[in-house]
């Protein structure tokens, strides 16, 4: 009969109306500023720079290689290289970014900078409340604003940060073993040279110092970086 469907529809909306007061499952709205849903672990919003240790400036992993700056599709990264160098986590002296700015209003959260970074220096943050009333200065994040500790990285993306740490440790171990091998080789070479030319002991004495030199820097920052 005519009107049957309308009555059925009215009953349906009435059921929804009353149900939204009774059952919590119907009312799925999360009242945002007061209540929040936990974020997914892989949530990503805006990049940050990882640093090791307590001092953000000394511990920055970034070596200002500018790969991310070149790869960034909307070109939101601006890097200025430093004139001097500082040792990285392996201990190699590297240049560091004197300036590293990312424009929040331009960034499109694509994560390409993270994927291209060979130094695990830039990662994605899940902080999404980046709005500001200062639309010029406030949206341009500088080095200091971008720097976040490795511990913070562990709290937001634990699995990924674990993998990164393992990879870095492996790399460091490799670098150390390589240095040790080089040192050993040098020592062996020196010893061989010393034993071969037993009479003049001068070249052997000359050969040892370089071996010491190659091992020494590798150990120092390794201790500091831990």
């Amino acid at each position: 009969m005519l009107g049957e469907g309308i009555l059925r529809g009215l009953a349906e909306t009435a059921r929804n109306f009353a149900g939204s007061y009774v059952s919590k499952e119907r009312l799925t709205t999360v009242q945002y500023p007061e209540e929040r849903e936990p974020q997914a672990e892989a949530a990503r919003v805006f990049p940050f720079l990882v640093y090791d240790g307590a001092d953000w400036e000394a511990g920055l992993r970034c070596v200002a290689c500018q790969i991310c700056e070149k790869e960034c599709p909307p070109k939101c990264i601006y890097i200025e290289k430093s004139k001097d160098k500082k040792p990285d986590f392996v201990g190699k002296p590297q240049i560091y970014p004197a300036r590293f700015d990312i424009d929040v209003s331009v960034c499109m959260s694509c994560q390409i900078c993270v994927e291209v970074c060979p130094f695990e220096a830039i990662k994605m943050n899940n902080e999404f409340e980046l709005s500001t009333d200062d639309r010029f200065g406030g949206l341009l994040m500088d080095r200091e604003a971008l720097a976040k500790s490795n511990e913070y990285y562990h709290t937001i993306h634990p699995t990924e940060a674990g993998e990164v740490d393992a990879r870095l440790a492996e790399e460091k171990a490799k670098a150390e073993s390589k240095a040790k091998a080089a040192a050993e080789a040098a020592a062996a070479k020196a010893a061989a040279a010393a034993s071969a030319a037993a009479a003049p002991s001068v070249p052997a004495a000359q050969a040892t110092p370089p071996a010491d030199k190659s091992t020494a820097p590798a150990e120092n920052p390794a201790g500091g970086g831990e």
Partner: protein
Amino acid sequence: MVEKADQIFVLLQHWLVSFLPAAWQHAAAVLLGVVAIIAVYPTLFALAVLMERKGLGRMQNRYGPNRVGPYGILQPVADGIKSLTKEDIVPFRADGLVHFVAPLVLVVAVFMGFAVLPMGRNMVLVDMDASLLFFFAMGASTELSVFMAGWSSRNKYSLLGAMRAVAQMISYEVPLLLSSVVIVMMTGSLSLERMVEAQNHYTGIFPHWFVFTPWGLAGFAMFVIASMAETNRSPFDLPEGESELVAGYFTEYSGFKFALFFLGEYVGMFGIAGLGATLFLGGWSAPFSFLTWVPSWIWFFAKVEIWICFFIWVRGTLPRLRQDQLMNFAWKFVLPMTLVNLVDAAVWRFMGEGWLRWVVCSAIVLAAYVLMGRVGMRREHLGPRSYRYAE
């Protein structure tokens, strides 16, 4: 005491007027009534908008506005401030004067209707003999303002919306009038006061409302449908169909003029709801004889609010009709039904007292409903649509 509560506004008016010299008293009394109407209905409008937004939200399983004030009750205030402070934009090519006057015409026409609505015992501003006629005349002049708005904006969406509005309002004006004519036939008067008095009797505890008779029920149903279309309410909101016409006839209105249109629309709803309540639901009379101690104006406003709630409920349920469906429905179903209803009312009138007239009149209405639903609303199977493009 009960008498005092029932007549509180009337007594207040008399008391306030008594301070003035006798020559001015009548004019002052009318003025007070006007002020009261102009104060009460916009307040109800604010309440209804909030209720609508919350109610629709709940029907869609969400909260609705709940940020401004506790439970969002100050939302209408925020909306009002917003619309007052917005820039008033008039299109460059618009007809400035007509564009300016259109919302005023709407609001004035809509408020004029309340002059004759009895909102409680002795609470009618002008007790006219032909008040029903006056109400419909005022209701019809809202069409003028809608067309003025659409025409003067010089915008295709406005014009299309206005065209639709006029077509729709004229089509539904006919069933609206015809469905209320049965009440005139029964009461023998065009005065809304007389109509309420005719319904203000009780058999046992039940009232003699016209909706409880076969012809009254049919008339009521047709009146509800036609009133929805008259006030451009969903599912008949084609004139302002957001999805196809931006906002219809008030597309080019902003700021306070837009707010006036919005106000006019809702106050028009109150007007038609008040008229419907007066015609079919006993106006200010109580629903049960043991509840007559409750002040009459409370019953009137309660009925209006329930009517508005029903409108909101329907809006949350039904999708918008298509223009041809709208017209088909008006001319092929609602209009014939109201005509049959006239015959039904006449049969009722001349069959005299007794159970037989209940049976006969119910049978007529039911048969007409089923038949009209089958024949008039039959879906025509046109087969799959094919398009031919100009070569």
